[in-house]
C-alpha cells in the first residue's frame, strides 16, 4: 500500500505538467481578451513536432521541446490573424484551428510514419544526495527537468503579468480595449503577442506529453487534455497559481488510473478512464455553485475590438 501511494504521488507531477503549462498559456492569451479554445489542437501540434524532431535526429529531446514551442506559436499565428485582424467569431475560429490541427497532425504523422515508434526522450534529473531521502527523495528530487522548469515558468509569467508594464498593458487590453486604445496601447499587437507567447507554452505542454511522459507518438494522443485545460482556466479564475493547484488536482486523478490497474484492484477499466472528464465537469459545477455573482473573467473576453465600431 505504501508503494502504491509513493508511486502515485511521484507520478503526479508528470501528469500535472501538461495541464499546468497549457492552462498557463491559455491564461496569458485570455487575459488579453481572446477566448482561446485552441489548446487541444496546439498541444497536438507540439506533440507531433517534438516527436518528429526526436525521431528524425535520433534524440535531442530538449531541442525537440523548443521545436514544439516554435511550431505551436507558428500555428497560433493563424488563430491570431483570424481573431485579431479578421475579427472572426472566437469560438468558431478556435474550433476550426483545433480540427485543422487534428487533421494536419494526423496526416503528417502518418505519412512520415512516426506512429508508435519509441522515442529517446528526456530522462529524470537525479538530484543526488537529496534523491536518496526515503519517500520524499523519490517524490521531489527524482523528476524530469521540465517539472522544475514549469515552476520557474510560473514564477516568470506571474511576474511579467502582474509586476511589469507590458503585463499591465496586456491585462488592460483584455479588460477594456477601447480605453487601452485611447491610452495609446495597441490592442491588436498586444493580443497577437499574447496569443503567440501563450501558445508556445501550450506547444511545450504537447511536446512534453510525446517526448517526456509517453515517449511515443500516436494520432490524437492529447485525448481531451486541451479541453480540460480550458476548463481549468475558468476554475482558476484566470490566475496562474490557482491554475497550478488545479493542474495538480487533475494530475492526481490521471496518475491514479494506471496505478489502480497495476495494483491489481479490479475496477471497470473504461469507467476509470472517464474520471478526468467527470472530475472536470464536477469542478465546473463547484465553480458555478460557489460563485453566484458570475465569473471574474477578463472584461472583454471574446469580444473583437474595432476602433471605428460604435458600441
Amino acid at each position, binding site marked *: 500500500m505504501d508503494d502504491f501511494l509513493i508511486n502515485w504521488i511521484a507520478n503526479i507531477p508528470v501528469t500535472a505538467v501538461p495541464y499546468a503549462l497549457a492552462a498557463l498559456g491559455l491564461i496569458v492569451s485570455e487575459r488579453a481578451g481572446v477566448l482561446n479554445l485552441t489548446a487541444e489542437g496546439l498541444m497536438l501540434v507540439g506533440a507531433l513536432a517534438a516527436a518528429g524532431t526526436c525521431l528524425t535526429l535520433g534524440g535531442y529531446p530538449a531541442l525537440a521541446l523548443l521545436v514544439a514551442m516554435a511550431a505551436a506559436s507558428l500555428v497560433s499565428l493563424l488563430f491570431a490573424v483570424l481573431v485579431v485582424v*479578421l475579427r472572426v467569431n472566437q469560438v468558431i475560429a478556435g474550433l*476550426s484551428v483545433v480540427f485543422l490541427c*487534428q487533421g494536419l497532425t494526423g*496526416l503528417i504523422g502518418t505519412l512520415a510514419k512516426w506512429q508508435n515508434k519509441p522515442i529517446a526522450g528526456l530522462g529524470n534529473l537525479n538530484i543526488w544526495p537529496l534523491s536518496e531521502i526515503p519517500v520524499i527523495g523519490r517524490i521531489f528530487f527524482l523528476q524530469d527537468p521540465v517539472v522544475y522548469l514549469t515552476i520557474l515558468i510560473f514564477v516568470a509569467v506571474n511576474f511579467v503579468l502582474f509586476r511589469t508594464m507590458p503585463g499591465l498593458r496586456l491585462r488592460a487590453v483584455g479588460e477594456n480595449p477601447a480605453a487601452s486604445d485611447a491610452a495609446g496601447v495597441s490592442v491588436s499587437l498586444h493580443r497577437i503577442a499574447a496569443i503567440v507567447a501563450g501558445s508556445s507554452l501550450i506547444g511545450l505542454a504537447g511536446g512534453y506529453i510525446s517526448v517526456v511522459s509517453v515517449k511515443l507518438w500516436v494520432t490524437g494522443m492529447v485525448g481531451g487534455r486541451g479541453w*480540460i485545460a480550458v476548463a481549468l482556466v475558468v476554475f482558476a479564475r484566470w490566475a496562474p497559481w490557482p491554475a497550478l493547484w488545479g493542474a495538480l488536482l487533475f494530475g492526481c486523478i490521471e496518475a491514479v488510473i494506471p496505478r489502480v490497474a497495476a495494483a491489481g484492484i479490479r475496477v471497470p477499466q473504461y469507467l476509470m478512464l472517464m474520471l478526468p472528464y467527470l472530475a472536470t465537469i464536477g469542478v465546473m459545477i463547484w465553480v*458555478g*455553485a460557489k460563485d453566484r455573482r458570475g465569473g471574474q473573467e477578463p472584461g472583454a473576453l471574446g469580444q473583437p475590438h474595432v476602433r471605428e*465600431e460604435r458600441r
Partner: protein
Amino acid sequence: MDDLAGQAAGPLTAPPASPRGLGRITLEVRQSVPPWKQAVFVGGSLLMGLVISVAILAWAGIAPATLGSELAGVLTSESLRGVLVQAAPLILVGLGASLAFRIGFWNLGIEGQMIFGGIFAAAISIHEIGPPSTRLLLMGVAAAAGGGLWVLLAAFLKSRFRVNEIIATLLLNYVAMYFLFHLLYGAWQDAKTAFPQSTPFRAFERLGDVGHGINGGLPIAIAGVLIAGWLVHLSRIGFYTRFISANPRMARIVGVPVRTMTLWLIAMSGACAGLAGFVNVASQEGRLTQSFFNGYVFSGVLIAFLSRNDPIVVAVVGFLVAVLFITGQTLQVFYQIPFAMVQMIEAIIVIAVASSEFLIRHRVRWIR
C-alpha cells in the same frame, strides 16, 4: 456647408498622418452589403479554401488530376448510392447543430449524443423490446430520446450551475465514448467474434432499401429537414426562437416562454444527433461498433455554419459533405491518406468562409 461638415468631422475620422509618412489603415463598418457582393466574397474565399486543400493533398501525394478522377468516380451512379447513405447522418447532425446554434447553445456534443442514440437503439434490439413489426420504429424513437437526454444533461448544467456548454458538451463526448467502450468490451461484446462490437442486429432491425437503391436513412433525414424547416420558418416556435436569439431579456419581458423554448430546441438538437447515431448503426454498420460516430462533431458545425442554420440549406450542404466523406474514404483505402484529412479540409473551408465575413462587414481603407 459640405466643406464645413468635412472640416468638423475631419479630425475625428482622419487623424493626421503618422510621422513615418506611411499613413494608417482604418476599418469602416459597412451599413449594408448587396447580396451579389456577399456571394462574390463568400464564393471567392470558398474557392481559395478549396485551392489550399488541393495543394495540401498534392503535397501528400495525391495529384490534382487523380483527385479529379476520384471525385468523378464518387459521383457515378454506383458510388452515388454510397454518398446518399452517408448524407443521411450528416444532414441529421447538421440539423442538430443548427437548431442548437439558433438558440445560442454551442452543442459540440454531437458525437456523444450519436453514441447514446446508438446505445439506446441497440438496447432495444438486445433486450428484444416490442414486437418485430414495430421494433425498428421503437429503436428510432429510443435513439432520439437517448440523444435528447444526453444533451439535456449539458443544458441542465448550464442553466443550473452556469457550466459553459462548450466545455461540458465536449467533455461529455469522452464520457459517452468510454461508456460505449465499457459496454462493447464487456456486457455487449459479440460472443461469437470476440471483437468489441455488439451482436449484429436482426434483419427487421435494420434500415434497408426503400426502393431504387436508396437507403432508409435518407427518408428520415429528409423528414427531419422538412420538420425543422417548418419549425424554423413557418411555426410560432421559429418566430420565438428568432426573438430569443435577438434579445433574450426583451423576449422574457414580453412573455415569450424563453426557458421552455430553449430546452425544447436543445433537446431536438440532441434528438437529431441521436437519430444520426441510429441511422449509422442500423444501416451502415448493422451493429454497435466503436467508431460509428467518428468525425461528426465538426461536420455538424461546418454544415450548420455554411448553411447559416437554415434547415433547407442543411440538406444541400450535407450532401456536399457526404461527397467529401466518400472521397476521403476512397483516398484512405487506395492511397493510405488518413481520414483525418476530411476534418482538415472541413476546417480550412470554415476558416476561409469565416474570414470572408470580415471583408463583407468592413471596408478596409488606407489613409495617408
